[in-house]
């Protein structure tokens, strides 16, 4: 059986699933309930000088019948007195001594940092997470992402914390920056023990088209929020990978951003995360999702023969490279299963209007199964992505694997197109219909 327990930068937990700092960790009641349900750790909702919130606070992107594919909030850090938070913090720690209980912090001055670090350590925190990520409300006051966006400031504030910290310190990074590895390296230079990413992405979640205001609406007005939920996972994965591969970072990474099921969790681990933080999906479904997360991860590890989380961390990283090192000789084409095809012809119209006109319809209108024109198929995958039937369109390898040539190698060999009408153009042999053919088609 797989062992889910972790030691993340010195913070031990029975499993890698932690609640991210946010509404689900607003109180001891919630955290205690989560630990009881099976969560391995929790990052307490960010503590500092208590704030005052507005109503409403959240907005969502619904994709077709799926609620909250993306989620945005304009809620700030904890609005509760520090004393209340810390009392409850101690209470939770007493009941769950082996779970990871981490304090998320956000204050301004060196003095305040020293004070609050000392206070939460006294309350029994297993680690600290510095909130340098919040992109709304707090950053205007010089905190949150205002720190995360300035590597030098981030480094300085981190070093203040390190002066008082006796427990591991995690720096939480904002994605609202062009190169995530810069603040990640600054965290390392400031002495941090780990990083966590991503915090929310600055966003307008949507516009109320009846009242000409964006969501979430406060009276008649709104403001930008922080975007998260399943929709941000691809952005988070890329940033985690960038930090994991960067030689100047080399810190344990706690992965955050759209984790909802065990597959998401495995993906984050494979690109370099060694603990995982979840918030939006708990806000959607409650703490109970931990059963599916743990069971899925366990089954996967057993299936693949992984004994510990550590064995999995970063497994996909060696296979992620720069575009110029990809094999230009690797060729796949689509293949449609006659047996499985239901005749929706979504692949046809996607390829026809959105790609390379490599799918043809049968002349017999009774036969709705499209055919691949292999000569035109560039192996882009689009048809297989739009196909609604499991396993109906597969991509078949066509090259024999004997040749490998990359753009990088071709550049070195001076074998690349260099002029506008170069005969080395990759699409030269591709058949494209004459533009006027478009007007002759059946309406």
């Amino acid at each position, binding site marked *: 059986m797989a062992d889910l327990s972790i030691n993340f930068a010195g913070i031990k937990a029975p499993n890698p699933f932690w609640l991210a700092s946010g509404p689900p960790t607003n109180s001891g009641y919630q955290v205690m309930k989560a630990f009881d349900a099976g969560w391995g750790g929790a990052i307490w909702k960010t503590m500092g000088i208590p704030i005052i919130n507005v109503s409403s606070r959240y907005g969502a992107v619904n994709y*077709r*019948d799926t609620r909250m594919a993306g989620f945005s909030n304009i809620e700030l850090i904890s609005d509760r007195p520090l004393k209340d938070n810390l009392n409850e913090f101690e209470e939770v720690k007493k009941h769950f001594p082996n779970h990871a209980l981490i304090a998320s912090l956000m204050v301004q001055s060196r003095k305040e940092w020293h004070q609050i670090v000392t206070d939460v350590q006294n309350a029994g925190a297993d680690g600290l997470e510095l909130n340098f990520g919040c992109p709304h409300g707090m950053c205007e006051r010089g905190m949150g992402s205002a720190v995360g966006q300035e590597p030098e400031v981030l480094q300085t504030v981190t070093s203040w914390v390190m002066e008082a910290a006796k427990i591991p310190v995690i720096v939480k990074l904002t994605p609202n920056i062009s190169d995530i590895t810069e603040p990640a390296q600054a965290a390392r230079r400031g002495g941090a023990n780990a990083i966590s990413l991503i915090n929310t992405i600055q966003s307008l979640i949507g516009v109320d088209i009846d009242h000409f205001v964006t969501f979430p609406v406060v009276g008649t007005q709104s403001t930008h929020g922080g975007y998260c939920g399943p929709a941000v996972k691809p952005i988070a994965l890329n940033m985690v990978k960038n930090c994991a591969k960067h030689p100047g970072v080399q810190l344990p990474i706690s992965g955050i951003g759209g984790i909802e099921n065990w597959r998401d969790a495995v993906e984050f681990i494979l690109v370099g995360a060694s603990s995982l933080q979840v918030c939006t999906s708990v806000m959607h479904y409650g703490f109970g999702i931990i059963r599916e997360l743990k069971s899925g991860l366990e089954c996967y590890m057993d299936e693949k023969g992984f004994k510990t989380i550590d064995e999995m961390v970063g497994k996909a990283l060696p296979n992620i490279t720069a575009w110029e090192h990809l094999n230009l000789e690797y060729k796949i084409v689509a293949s449609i299963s006659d047996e*499985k*095809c*239901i005749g*929706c012809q*979504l692949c046809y119209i996607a390829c026809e209007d959105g790609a390379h006109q490599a799918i043809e319809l049968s002349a017999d209108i009774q036969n709705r199964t499209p055919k691949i024109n292999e000569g035109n198929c560039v192996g882009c995958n689009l048809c297989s992505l739009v196909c609604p039937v499991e396993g109906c369109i597969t991509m078949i390898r066509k090259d024999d694997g004997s040749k490998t040539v990359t753009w990088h190698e071709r550049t070195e060999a001076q074998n690349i197109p260099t002029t506008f009408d170069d005969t080395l153009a990759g699409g030269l042999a591709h058949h494209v219909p004459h533009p006027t053919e478009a007007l002759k088609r059946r309406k």
Partner: protein
Amino acid sequence: MEKINFLLSMAEFNIPKTEEGFCRNFGQIKPLMNTTEAFYESSRCLFCYDAPCVKACPASIDIPLFIRQIHTNNIFGAAKTIYESNYLGNACGKVCPTEVLCEGVCVFKKQKIKSLEIGRLQTFATTTAIVHNKKLFAVSENKRAKVAVIGAGPAGIACACELRLHGYLVDIYEEKAQPSGLLIHGVAPYKIENLEITTEINYLQSIFGFTVHYNWPIKTKTDLQKLEKTYSAIFLGIGLGNTRSLNIRGEDLKNCIGATEFIEHLKLNRLTTGVGKKVVVLGGGNTAMDAASDAARMGAEAVILAYRGNKAEMKAYHFEYELAKNVGVKAIFNAIPLAITGNGQVSGVKFQKTQTQNGKLQPVAGSEFSIDCDMVIKATGQKKQSDFLKLIDNLKLDDLGRIVTQAENGQTTNPKYFAGGDARNGGTEVVNAAAEGKLAAKGIVDFLKEM
């Protein structure tokens, strides 16, 4: 002679004594969706390219488009998409045999996934437009030419809407007191309620402004001559007549009734429609299934459907047969009625068994049997209105008594007359009638332009 007795079991339906009880017995098989249901159902549509559902729709409604419009909360847009192709969009969503049309060809079925509930989505969108009295169309400025429409059934109504859209004044002459022809008078009440039908017709009338003259039969040569004088073109949407006679003994007995007449009575008089304790329905078409279901829902203790051929030869759609079976109707096959027996009142039906030989149905000698019953419903097809149609000069009918028209514009062999609906096609669905009425209106518009 062999006598077959059907054991009387406790009937599933009690005889409805109150309006509430009637509604319970005739619960809608395609009830109106609520907003949430429509939202989730519409989310499932794949938006197929060159979608099979559109091709299967006699009115060629752009189904994937209106479903997408529902899903994006552009409900009025969805209603417009529907009404642009079918003026009876609301009723058709409920009464169309979607199981064998649009929903029957939904690509999901190939992976054993439930088809989209297209009919119910269609009714959802159009009901929303109707409830909000949304004026989806603006009629053109009035033109001088006037058109007469005979019959306010689906074909006539659709024809009138399209003509009004182009600005032609339309007078509809309707023999009965209510519009919509068989919709109100002949479609089983568990498929659609009369109020729903009249609400849609009123809505259409408020948009298009055609005039309906109720209780105004056009029956004689003189009637026709008057119309010919006053109107530039005439549309024949007269449908079919009463139930055809079987030409067997006992058809005149009390409690022997035609299916069309039985359903009409039920639709108009509801609770006061009497059914026997034991009802025999003769026929194997969709009207037979409706009549049998209706009899069962009215509290008949046993309903026996007798069809002369075998099950495979039965014309009713499979799902219609299933609907009848589900309310307790029992079917017997290869039984041809020889006589309806009784003394003043029906007491039974005498049958002979049949078998198919060389593709022809043959009676089996010596196989007579009888079934006791106290009511017989004949669902053996409706008569053509040939006698009336013969009054129109140069109007050609085909061998089956159907009005011959040009396929592309519904024009008859008398250029002033156009036709559509059951009188033209011999009796099909409401949606076919609506499509043909609309097609003929386009033909009339072209005809009037040339004049």
